[in-house]
């Protein structure tokens, strides 16, 4: 009875409990709101990227029959590619024009447009593609070949809904009449929009021909840089962490190094770019725009991340394991390499991949070392490729957003999707490796 009088009934909440419970449910509501807001924001971001960028993976092609007369392409008649190379891409343009007019006539498509205007249906890249094909296979000369050519960016945009009859009327690069011809070609099955591998494999293209611009050089450049970063940052970072965590004496120099590593992780990446420009290019004389230099700069940037996560992973290995190893007479190094490091490996791998992912998405330092340049040539496959000019994925995105033609906006978003897919893949790899190597103790 005395309990009853002191505490009241347990079946009714007292004022203080009610207040506490209310505060708790309020706090839960705030938290939930925050989560929902972030999910919504993320969803909108992804939706906008996907809706803008998926089109870049589709491209419109037009199939025409092209006659390849010998008198235009190979007057000598020896079919020697070196001789035939004297005919420049300009020499191929009339062939494409004639082929297009012929194809239209065969398909029964009537138009009052001039042949020159009709050429606006086809990418300015087409003559080069035709020339490349002919030089690779000189025996085609004298025949009539059927060839699938890239459609002009405006025409491509028309089929993707970016260009309309109204906007075409105001556009000096195309006209509603041309679009009508394109529509008829599509109706006849001569013009199709399909998946475009070229977006992932082709090099960048000039302002006038967005339809042929691709990520090939950027992907290759990024790949080379990642190889450099992995080859340098992982061993350096892990070795530095092991030394600091397991061997370094506990004194003010070690403390100073530790504090500064944490600080370096927070240094803006553009500062690393300036450093790279000053040291690697100006002082060491390495070439500009090279994946090697980009990789070195990104290594500097990634090292603190890797060191911090590796040290955290080493720290989380229980000291009893070290004691056990030392207790049976293992040396310090044996205890680290036989026992501590394998247990820390999942954490180290995760940290490394996160560091690599950061490096893959980094733009600012690359701008300063010249990787922002327009690069049309693929870097060599192999060791020489590391010093050949290249761009990188994020820089390519930056580059394309600077271009005037709206078709490049689509390509920039497509490149963002590509970059995100790479990052997603790396994160999945990190999760997979962690699961695989994780051991309980």
């Amino acid at each position: 009875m005395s309990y009853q009088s002191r505490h009241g009934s347990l079946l009714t909440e007292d004022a203080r409990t009610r207040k506490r419970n209310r505060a708790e449910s309020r706090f839960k509501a705030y938290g939930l709101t925050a989560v929902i807001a972030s999910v919504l924001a993320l969803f909108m971001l992804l939706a906008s990227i996907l809706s803008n960028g998926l089109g870049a993976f589709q491209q419109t092609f037009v199939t025409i029959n092209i006659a390849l007369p010998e008198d235009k392409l190979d007057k000598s008649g020896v079919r020697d590619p070196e001789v035939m190379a004297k005919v420049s891409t300009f020499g191929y343009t009339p062939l494409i024009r004639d082929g297009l007019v012929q194809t239209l006539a065969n398909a029964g498509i009537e138009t009052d447009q001039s042949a020159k205007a009709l050429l606006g249906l086809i990418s300015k890249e087409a003559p080069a593609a035709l020339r490349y094909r002919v030089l690779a296979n000189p025996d085609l000369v004298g025949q009539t070949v059927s060839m699938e050519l890239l459609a002009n960016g405006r025409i491509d945009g028309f089929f993707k809904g970016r260009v309309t009859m109204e906007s075409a009327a105001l556009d000096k690069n195309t006209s509603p009449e041309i679009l009508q011809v394109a529509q008829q070609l599509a109706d006849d099955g001569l013009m199709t929009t399909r998946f475009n591998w070229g977006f992932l494999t082709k090099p960048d293209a000039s302002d006038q021909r967005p339809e042929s611009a691709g990520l090939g050089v950027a992907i290759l450049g990024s790949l080379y840089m990642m190889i450099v970063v992995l080859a340098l940052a992982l061993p350096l970072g892990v070795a530095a962490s092991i030394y600091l965590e397991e061997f370094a004496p506990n004194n003010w120099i070690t403390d100073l190094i530790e504090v500064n590593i944490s600080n370096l992780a927070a240094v803006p990446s553009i500062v690393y770019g300036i450093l790279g420009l000053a040291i690697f290019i100006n002082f060491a004389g390495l070439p500009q725009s090279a994946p090697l230099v980009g990789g070195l700069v990104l290594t500097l940037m990634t090292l603190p991340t890797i060191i911090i996560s590796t040290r955290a992973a080493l720290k989380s290995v229980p000291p009893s394991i070290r004691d056990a190893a030392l207790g049976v007479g293992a040396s310090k190094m044996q205890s680290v390499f036989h026992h501590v490091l394998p247990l820390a490996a999942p954490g180290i791998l995760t940290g490394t991949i996160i560091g690599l992912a950061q490096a893959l998405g980094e733009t600012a330092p690359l701008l300063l070392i010249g990787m922002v340049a327009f690069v049309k040539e693929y870097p060599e496959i192999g060791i020489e490729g590391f010093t050949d000019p290249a761009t990188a994925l994020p820089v390519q995105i930056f580059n394309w957003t600077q271009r005037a033609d709206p078709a490049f906006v689509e390509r920039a978003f497509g490149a963002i999707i590509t970059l995100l897919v790479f990052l997603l893949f790396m994160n999945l790899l990190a999760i997979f490796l962690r699961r695989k190597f994780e051991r309980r103790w």
Partner: protein
Amino acid sequence: MKDQAEMDNSMPTPSKISASGVQVYYGDNHAIKDVNVEIADKTVTAFIGPSGCGKSTFLRCINRMNDTIDVCRVEGDIRIDGEDIYDPKVDPVQLRAKVGMVFQKPNPFPKSIYDNVAYGPKIHGLARDKAELDEIVETALRRGAIWDEVKDRLDAPGTGLSGGQQQRLCIARAVATEPEVLLMDEPCSALDPIATAQVEELIDDLRQRFSVVIVTHSMQQAARVSQRTAFFHLGNLVEMDDTDKIFTNPRDPRTESYISGRIG
């Protein structure tokens, strides 16, 4: 027992371990104050005392595990078989092969039972081939009184065993390198009474081959397993004598207070 005690006093046999004037500092903290201890071969010596009295610290001096603690400083003279183990020429790694250690919490490596035991012999090159290593592992597991329980699953992870089995595995791991001295730092504090009884029985067997030094919080345990007992208090070695003497007829009033439960 009495005869033996008299023999010890009258005609001191050369001790396995002899420590004199040992001082240990943790930074400014003077943890061990001028301790002199003689530990005989093929006996079990127990270190008892309240928490923080320095008994574990002193134990860890004997195989130089304190070296791994930066702020720890050891002074004085500790000799095993007459050799100063803090001599600059001594490599602690070599010392620890001679002086094995079992820790308070069972700490098997996250590897198979076999690899746990085989690790020490491997790094010390005790086996010439696989067959010899198998034999060493089996012998060690038998000495650890765990062979019958694990012989069918040597590839199973050592961490999957029960606490008592893990501790016996750790003992097997420690004896696999053929040490001469076995240090045990409260080996039963994380175990239930049944596992404790098994480990205690094992300690008694180990006495045949090793000199065992055991730190324990349990006075009953010290009384059960040891022949000699040292009582530590506030970093001082208060009293060291035959175990039955310490528990029945202590010389120092502090020892008497501790074993009767008045200080601790």
